[in-house]
C-alpha cells in the first residue's frame, strides 16, 4: 500500500553538495528476518560537520549506528538492501575491528565503560587497534581534553559518576583515532551542567580536531544547537531533514521535539495537523 517515501527537505541546503564522509544509501534493516527496523533511509554525513539524528524511542537511531559499526549480527539484525559507504567504499559487510581501523567508532548508548577496569585500562582498550606509541599519543590528547580522567586514571571506572563515565566513554572512543565519531545519546541521564561540558567537547572535536560527528539524540534542542545538519527519524524512516537552523525553526519540530509551539502551549489542533502530515507522508 505504502509507496516510496519522499522525505521532506526544509531549507535550500540540499544534502548532495558536500563531500560525504559517511553515507547510508537507501538502507533497509531487518531483525530476525521479520521485523523491519529501518526502511529505505538515506543519510549523508559531510566531512567535518556535526550531523544530528533525532527521533523518539524506537525510531531506529541506534539501529543505524549498530549497522555502521558492524555489530547488527549480534542482535540477529541484517542490512537487507542498500549500502553504507565510508569514503566511497562499501563498508557494511566489514568486521567491527576493520571498521575501527578505518576510523569509524561509536560511543554506545548508556556509556558502557568496562566497569571493573581502571580508567587507564578502559582507555587502553580504546587504543587496542593502535600501536603502543600511537596509543600513548592519543591518551595524552584525551587527558588534555578531559583533565578529570587524568586525575582519576587509576580508579575503577564502575565507581565514577555518570558524567565522568560519559567522558571516559568518549575518551575511550577517541583512543581509536577516529575520523568519524558517532555518539548515541550522550546526554542521557546527565545533569544539565554536565551535558554542557560534554557538548562543549563535541563542538571542540569538530572545530579543533576536524572530526566528523554523527550525533544521535532524543534531546533535540541540545543537538540542534550545535549540529550543522539534522535528520528526523520516525518508525524507521526519515521524515524530515534540513540544516539545523531550519529544523529548529520548523513548526512541527518545535512542537514535537523541542516542546515549544508557536502559540506558546500545545494545542490539539497542532496534533491533528501533525497527524495529517504524517498520514500524507506514509
Amino acid at each position, binding site marked *: 500500500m505504502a509507496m516510496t517515501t519522499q522525505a521532506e527537505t526544509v531549507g535550500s541546503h540540499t544534502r548532495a553538495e558536500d563531500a560525504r564522509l559517511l553515507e547510508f544509501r537507501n538502507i533497509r534493516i531487518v531483525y530476525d528476518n521479520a521485523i523491519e527496523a529501518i526502511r529505505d533511509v538515506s543519510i549523508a554525513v559531510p566531512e567535518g560537520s556535526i550531523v544530528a539524528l533525532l527521533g523518539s524511542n524506537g525510531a531506529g537511531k541506534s539501529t543505524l549506528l549498530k549497522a555502521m559499526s558492524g555489530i547488527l549480527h549480534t542482535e540477529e539484525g541484517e542490512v537487507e538492501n542498500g549500502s553504507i559507504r565510508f569514503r566511497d567504499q562499501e563498508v557494511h559487510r566489514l568486521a*567491527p575491528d576493520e571498521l575501527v581501523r578505518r576510523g569509524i567508532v561509536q560511543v554506545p548508548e548508556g556509556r558502557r565503560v568496562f566497569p571493573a*577496569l581502571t580508567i587507564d*585500562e578502559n582507555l*587502553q582498550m580504546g587504543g*587496542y587497534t593502535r600501536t603502543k606509541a600511537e596509543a600513548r599519543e592519543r591518551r595524552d590528547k584525551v587527558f588534555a581534553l578531559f583533565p578529570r580522567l587524568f586525575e582519576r586514571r587509576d580508579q575503577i571506572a564502575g565507581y565514577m559518576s555518570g558524567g565522568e563515565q560519559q567522558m571516559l566513554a568518549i575518551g575511550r572512543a577517541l583512543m*581509536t583515532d577516529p575520523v568519524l565519531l558517532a555518539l548515541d545519546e550522550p546526554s542521557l541521564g546527565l545533569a544539565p551542567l554536565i551535558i554542557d561540558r560534554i557538548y562543549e567537547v563535541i563542538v571542540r572535536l569538530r572545530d579543533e580536531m576536524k572530526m566528523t560527528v554523527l550525533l544521535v539524540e532524543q534531546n533535540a534542542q541540545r543537538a540542534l544547537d550545535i549540529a550543522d545538519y539534522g535528520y528526523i527519524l520516525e518508525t524507521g524512516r526519515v521524515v524530515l531533514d534540513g540544516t539545523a537552523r531550519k529544523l529548529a525553526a520548523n513548526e512541527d519540530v518545535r512542537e514535537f521535539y523541542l516542546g515549544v509551539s508557536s502559540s506558546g502551549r500545545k494545542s490539539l489542533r497542532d496534533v491533528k495537523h501533525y497527524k495529517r502530515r504524517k498520514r500524507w507522508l506514509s
Partner: protein
Amino acid sequence: MQYLTQLLISGLAIGAIYGLIAMGFAVIYKSTGLVNFAQGEMTMIVAYIAWTISTTISGNLFIVAAGAIISAIVLGLVIERVVMRPMLGEPVFATVMVTIGLAVILRSSINFIWDAYPHGLDVGFGRDIVRVGNIGVRTGQIAVIATLLVLLAAIWAFFRYSKFGVAMRAVAADDRTALLMGISAPRVHAAAWAASSVIAGIAGVFFAITYDLSPAMFQLGLKAFPATILGGLDAVLGSGIGGLLIGITENLAGGYFGSGMKEVAGFLMIIVVLMVRPFGLFGERDIERV
C-alpha cells in the same frame, strides 16, 4: 607433628592440582562468562595424550611436556571453534549445557580411544621420594606446587599488564562494547580456551606422573570446581589458592576424621565460606551504579 606436616604437604600437592584446574575454570569464565563443565575431562584427555607420547614416541620429560602443551592448545582451540563458537550469543544456560554434553563425550572417548585400565605415566621423574628430615615427599609433588606458584605469578601479571590480558577482562565484562573498540571477541575466546586447556593439561600430566592415569581422572574437575567457587569464579589467582585450601582441608579431614570426611570436607568449607562471601574469597563484587 610429623603426621601433620606429611598431611599438609600432600594436601598442598593435590591442592596444587585442583588449583591448576580451577584456574582453567576461571580463565574461561573471566573471558567468556561461561562455566566449562568439561574442564576435568580436558585435564584427563591431555594426560592420556601425554601418556601416549611417552609410550610411543619418547619418554623424555621435555618431549612429553612439549607434546602435551601443544596438544592441549589444539584441543582448546578445536573445542572453541567447533563446539563453542556456534553457541556465541545463545543463552548462557544453553551454552553451559553444551559443555556438559562435551564433558560426557570426552569422558567416554577415553574408553574408545584408549582403555579402561589405570596406567602410570613414566617420564623418569616425579615418583622418587625426597626426604626432608623425616618427611618423605615425591619430586612430582614438589614440582607441581612450584608450577602452580609460577603460573599464579605469570597469570596475575598477564591479566594486569598485558594488553591482551586486559582485553580478555573487557570482553568478559561487555563483549559488544569490546567489539566496538575493535577487539575481536572470537579471538579472545579462542585464546582463553587454549590457555585454559594448557593449564588443565599441566595439572593432568602432573597427576599422572605423581599418581596414576585412569578413566576416573575427570573427577579432578569435580574437586576443582568447588575450588574455583571458593576462590571466586572470576578470580584466576583466587581459584589457584582455593585449590590449595581445598587440598589441605580434605587431607587434614581425611587424616584425622577418616576417609569419609575427606570427600565432604571441601564442600563443607565452601558452604560456610559462601554464606559469608557469596562471590568467593577473592571474587569481585558486581559493580553496579544506578
